[in-house]
């Protein structure tokens, strides 16, 4: 219960943060050259000043900045993200249509990166400077230095174009009209490349952190105590080092949540996945500011939720948290 209390407290404290963020962004976007109406008129192939005026009134873009800010915040409280002129649908509807793809991509690649990074980090730290450690560190370094979009493109060249094993893009094959298990298999085939691409890059980070963290913890006094107790190397790693070494990994997971979401913008564009990353890109191109603000809001919420979960895991792993801070 204490854990939950702590986490709820953290969650509450992110409300002012979110408010700062939204107000800041709203004001910032007021500075943007051109608004939705300009974009819409450009799309229609030009229009008179009166038409523009009317459209602005229709989309509620004619009030003072302050009035529109308050209006915007009040609508957010009711989870109304406004209306997208480009898609001719409420922003929330469009975002929630696209959300599952991004969530799937994020959850899959984050878990893959975390688990593989952890395992390889442990292997690496077991024999520091051994050949396996050297190879893993080297690979980690290279993947860490690789731009995600480029890795995606190269993977398409090899696995889709040369070998023809995997589809080069899309979420599923619309023409095939698969249902049931066949559909799941189809989605899996489509998601494999983007997930692995994104995961490989973040795995490199986790590998590095896990290795360093294992080495750090193994110099601590209680590991010496464990050795003095006559425990074997594996027992020491399993019962004493591992859990302590996981703490920084958990922290990084919270910090990386935002980065992975950002990375999905590029990856979804490379693999033509209809997620909110690609949506963000499209709304930038189309100057659909309502949509962009909506995406910002939703992705900030996602990061807050991930951090909430991270806090829970951390507090579960570390008993010191609940007794000191609550």
């Amino acid at each position: 219960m204490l854990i939950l209390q702590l986490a709820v407290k953290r969650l509450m404290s992110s409300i002012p943060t979110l408010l700062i963020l939204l107000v800041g962004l709203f004001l910032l976007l007021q500075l943007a050259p051109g608004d939705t109406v300009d974009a819409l008129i450009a799309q229609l192939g030009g229009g008179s000043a009166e038409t523009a005026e009317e459209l602005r009134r229709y989309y509620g873009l004619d009030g003072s900045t302050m009035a529109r800010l308050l209006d915007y915040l009040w609508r957010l409280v009711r989870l109304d993200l406004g209306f997208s002129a480009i898609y001719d649908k409420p922003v929330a509807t469009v975002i929630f249509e696209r959300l599952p793809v991004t969530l799937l991509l994020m959850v899959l690649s984050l878990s893959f990166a975390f688990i593989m990074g952890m395992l390889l980090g442990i292997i690496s730290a077991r024999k520091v400077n051994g050949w396996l450690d050297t190879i893993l560190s080297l690979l980690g370094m290279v993947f860490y230095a690789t731009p995600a979009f480029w890795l995606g493109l190269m993977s398409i060249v090899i696995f889709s174009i040369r070998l023809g094993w995997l589809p080069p893009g899309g979420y599923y094959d619309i023409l095939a009209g698969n249902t049931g298990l066949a559909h799941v298999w189809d989605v899996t085939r489509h998601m494999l490349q983007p997930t692995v691409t994104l995961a490989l890059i973040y795995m490199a980070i986790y590998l590095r952190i896990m290795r360093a963290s294992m080495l750090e913890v193994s110099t601590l006094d209680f590991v010496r105590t464990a050795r003095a107790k006559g425990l074997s190397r594996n027992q020491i790693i399993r019962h004493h080092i591992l859990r302590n070494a996981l703490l920084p990994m958990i922290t990084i997971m919270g910090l990386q949540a935002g980065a992975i979401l950002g990375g999905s913008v590029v990856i979804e564009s490379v693999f033509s996945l209809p997620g909110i990353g690609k949506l963000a890109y499209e709304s930038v191109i189309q100057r659909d500011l309502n949509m962009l603000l909506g995406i910002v809001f939703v992705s900030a919420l996602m990061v807050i939720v991930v951090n909430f979960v991270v806090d829970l895991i951390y507090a579960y792993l570390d008993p010191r948290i609940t007794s000191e801070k609550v």
Partner: protein
Amino acid sequence: MTTLAKIQDLSIALPKNADREFAVENLSVDIHKGEIVCVVGESGSGKSMTASALMGLLPDELTVTSGRIMLGDLNILQQSEQQMRRIRGPRIGMIFQEPMTALNPLRTAGDQIAEMFRAHTDLKPDQQKFRALDLLKEVGIPDPELAYRAYPHELSGGQRQRVMIAMALALEPEILIADEPTTALDVTVQAQILELIRTIQQRSGMGVLFITHDFSVVSEIADRVIVMQHGSIVESGNARDVLENPQHSYTKTLIAAVPGLIPPPPRDLSRQVVAEVSSLSKTYRTGGGVFGRARRVTHAVRDANFTLTEGATVGIVGESGSGKSTLARCIVRLQSSDAGQVMFGDVDFAALQGRSLRENRHLVQMIFQDPYGSLNPRRTVGDLVTQGLVARGMKYSDALAKGQELFALVGLDPTVMDRMPHQFSGGQRQRVGIARALALEPRLLIADEAVSALDVSVQAQVLDLLVDLRDRLSLSILFITHDLRVAAQVCDRIIIMQRGEIVEQGLTADVFANPSHPYTRSLLASVPGAA
């Protein structure tokens, strides 16, 4: 007498770039059944390495070049890692200096004790728990059930060390190695832990190898003493013989450096008041806020009243958490107090703010505990000493001249002013710290545990310097310490603090001779070697 372990002609080589060749050289020690052997030495004497070697836990950089360590018929140095695991725990137990960091913070105390049985016996989980609870009872923890479920951070320092001892004793080893087990503890707790080790040792008849730097602890617990310096044994023998009749000059210095517990008779003191502390209080509030639980209020300092006079040293003595450091920091204004005054003449130093505070900073200066942490590693020692003068508007050349005087005053060669702090030893750094504090010509000098981090032989020199400076400059010194022996020797008056309150104050000789408060009495009784 049965010999449990024999260390014979042991030499351990240090890595190439170290300041000497061997960590330990030609060392021979026997550990007998039912006997406590104390290995005494200052930092770097190789005493801890001896313990590690016996446990087969030497750091990788160190190599044994000769000798053997016999445990019964086994040579420990020739055992494989797997064989060593059957010795560590079942045959040799070990406890360490820092009971906080020596326990895994993420697992309960009981779990860590039970792990001994898991690793070495076939006991079932409920039997493991039963035995662990038994052990906790044996080491004198008041509520074993509660302690079993507690995480290390929920226990006090003394309780943690008891848990460590319970763990080391779990499999009834023949030998217990105790590496400075009471150094990090308060004096009353130290007395209890020493007592506990003594009792258990006598009950079980095991051999104990006790590592310490403190001769007063030796006199409390040792049957036999081995004195080490620079990796070699300089003297060894029966504890009483060595303590009463030391042969080697180094042993003599070490024993002489332990201050006596009987204060010298009171001196004639000036009545000239330097500062008057009245009703000084400091309260910490933690928690609170909108979503927090009830606020926790800690009275770090409660209604402190005392007077500081010219040319006198006033000691504040207390254990950790007594508020003695907070009191010092409030007086020197590194923290602000909540209530009360610190009057220097008609200036209330506790109430000054901003510019007027900066301009009056020269009234009180402070010497810090850690000779390594208290000097900015990126500035020359000359800079460090003259900085305050320059900040107060003195010309650089004048400040430099004054700095040279100060260096001479504290016994340092003025030509070293352009060196960096890392080029000095601990004692020399402390002298630099003193020179820095004296630069502003303070009327009150606060020494916060100023000699606690130094080796005993250096400690004495720095104390002498402080006394000398006090007399020459008519300084008033407020001396914060946990060490009653040091306080007895250097303080004219003494203030005893407990949980934020002054429980007793008076002339040192009077307080030591006739302590009126029960806490003072228990403190005095706990000092090792007092009896």
